[in-house]
């Protein structure tokens, strides 16, 4: 098992990142499944990361409590800003949430307790692989259950036609807020996990680019169900490693792959309808 030890020592951060990114992609999937294009998840991740890190660093809280707080605080913030913001739709919501992220960033930048632009350094590396597996598992389970329930259907109905959904008895504002809050909590926990294996966090780790990255992972993988965001986050987390030997033009290749996948699989990599159609066709062929 020597190769395994070497492999693990080299790549455990990459693997951890895949798990955390999967959670982030799922966090935006929740809001997308309710028709909300919210780009606040990077900011929520940041709030979660700072909360959890401050608790472990300054107050020496146990990790589970810190992580829980890292999920709860963003959820509370989401609750507060969600009420006015979620009246917006489409790109306007995206922008307002980006604006919110920017405000959070500037606040963090100017606070003392958060370490300003230097951020927090020396965050203890407590995150273990099984923490991530466990929490990712819980996230997937809960979201999968939600999907199959009236809540999931309400989300989808809202996504398709708010007015019709409202007249089916769906409390549209309430469910939107719920999706937003769930997304924030997941992103916050992911942020807490991430902070505790990257040693340092700073205000610029949770800005515009990260918000867009999270969205890209979800859409790239496909947002019609839970599998897509996970595939998307896995591939996009691995891509830079795999492309390492392209050196200077690695990012160009990365961009090219993104374009090609999107061109040929516009509904994301995991598109059940296409897959079903594909399998169906093959089955037909076999029968013939």
């Amino acid at each position: 098992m020597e190769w395994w030890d070497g492999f693990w020592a080299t790549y455990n951060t990459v693997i951890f990142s895949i798990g955390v990114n999967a959670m982030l992609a799922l966090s935006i999937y929740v809001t997308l499944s309710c028709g909300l294009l919210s780009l606040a998840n990077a900011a929520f991740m940041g709030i979660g990361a700072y909360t959890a890190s401050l608790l472990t660093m300054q107050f020496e809280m146990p990790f589970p409590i810190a992580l829980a707080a890292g999920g709860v605080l963003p959820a509370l913030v989401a609750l507060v800003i969600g009420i006015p913001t979620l009246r917006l739709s489409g790109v306007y919501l995206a922008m307002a949430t980006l604006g919110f992220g920017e405000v959070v960033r500037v606040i963090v930048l100017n606070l003392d307790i958060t370490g300003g632009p230097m951020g927090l350094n020396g965050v203890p590396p407590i995150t273990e692989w099984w923490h991530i597996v466990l929490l990712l598992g819980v996230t997937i389970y809960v979201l999968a259950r939600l999907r199959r329930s009236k809540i999931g259907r309400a989300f989808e109905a809202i996504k398709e036609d708010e007015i019709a959904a409202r007249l089916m008895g769906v409390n549209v504002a309430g469910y939107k807020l719920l999706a937003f809050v769930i997304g924030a909590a997941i992103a916050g926990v992911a942020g807490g996990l991430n902070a505790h294996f990257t040693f340092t966090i700073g205000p610029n780790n949770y800005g515009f680019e990260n918000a867009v990255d999270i969205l890209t992972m979800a859409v790239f993988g496909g947002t019609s169900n839970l599998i897509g965001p996970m595939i998307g986050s896995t591939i996009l987390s691995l891509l830079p490693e795999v492309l390492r030997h392209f050196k200077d033009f690695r990012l160009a290749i990365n961009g090219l792959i993104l374009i090609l996948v999107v061109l040929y699989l516009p509904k994301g990599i995991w598109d059940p309808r296409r897959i079903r159609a594909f399998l169906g066709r093959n089955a037909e062929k076999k029968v013939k």
Partner: protein
Amino acid sequence: ADIKLGVAEALTGPAAKYGVAIKNGFTLASEEINAKGGVNGDKLALVIEDEQGKKEEAINVFKKLIFQDKVLAVFGPTLSNSAFAADPIANAAKVVVFGTSNTADGITAMGPFTFRNSVMEADVLPVTVKAAVKHFGIKKVAVIYGNDDAFTKSGYDVFKATLEHQKIPVTTTEAYAKGDVDFKAQLTKIKAGNPDAIVCSCLAEEAANIILQTRALGMKQPFIGGNGLNSPKLFEIAKDAGDNTLMGSPWSAENQTPANKAFITAYKAKFGADPDQFAAQAYDAMYIVADALKNVKLSGNLAKDRDALRAALPAVKIDGATGKFAFRAAPAVAGKQVGFDADQEAIVNIAKGGKFVLLK
């Protein structure tokens, strides 16, 4: 056998302008050393990786270098922020991590395997301000700095403390953000306070733009800056509008020591461009490590060799492109010994005719 050394720098992305110069410095020095027969007969082999100036990437690259490529020591990463993420990896693995461009406070507090030859602003700026006051007869200054970047912000903190300490009143303090190109609003405000000079904790390219826009607003004040301004870029952009800018740095193109002259000539010959401070510090860092390696008997047992290098480094003293260099133990943290900072004297330069010359 070859001695494998890891280089983890930002070769793409916005931080690449430093990372590439640093990589050049390492390449130049290692080639020179190898051309002279290497260290005790062993050649230096660099394993160069791009960390993009991102903390996660820096961690990944460090792990790859340490666990997969099994390098003896790692140079980098480019930015202090990334160093805070990656250096703990090296310390945990008991591998020397050598920063050539990390100036932030607390870098060497991360563990006993952390070394750097980048001079902290706290060592440079007080000297610079003092020289400026004397040279221009300054009574009051305005300050402008980048407030979302660890380097410029920590430079600002040092400036602030220095100005307080030297009792120089500040008319106004203005901030800008990374990527800004229009500074006129801040400068107009500075103009209203009518300071005698403008203290600028900025990177060279921003500073060049700030200087040009200051002049466009009809202001003639000289600028005072730190390490960040020490780049040919300043003049490529600002031309002689930058004249009278005072800058403190461990390295100067005008420093006429033989080592520095040799470095500059070799760099120009190899890369066809003027070197900057980042290249100079990287160049010196390679020689520092090579010097330490002279006193290390490589056993082939990686862990032992890494430890031996760590033990040999603190004693190194060289006279390099950046002048006389020695290590200074960083203040202990919680009673434990930590890493080593640079012990070097700052040189104060003044811009004249589109380049920095030594301030006499």
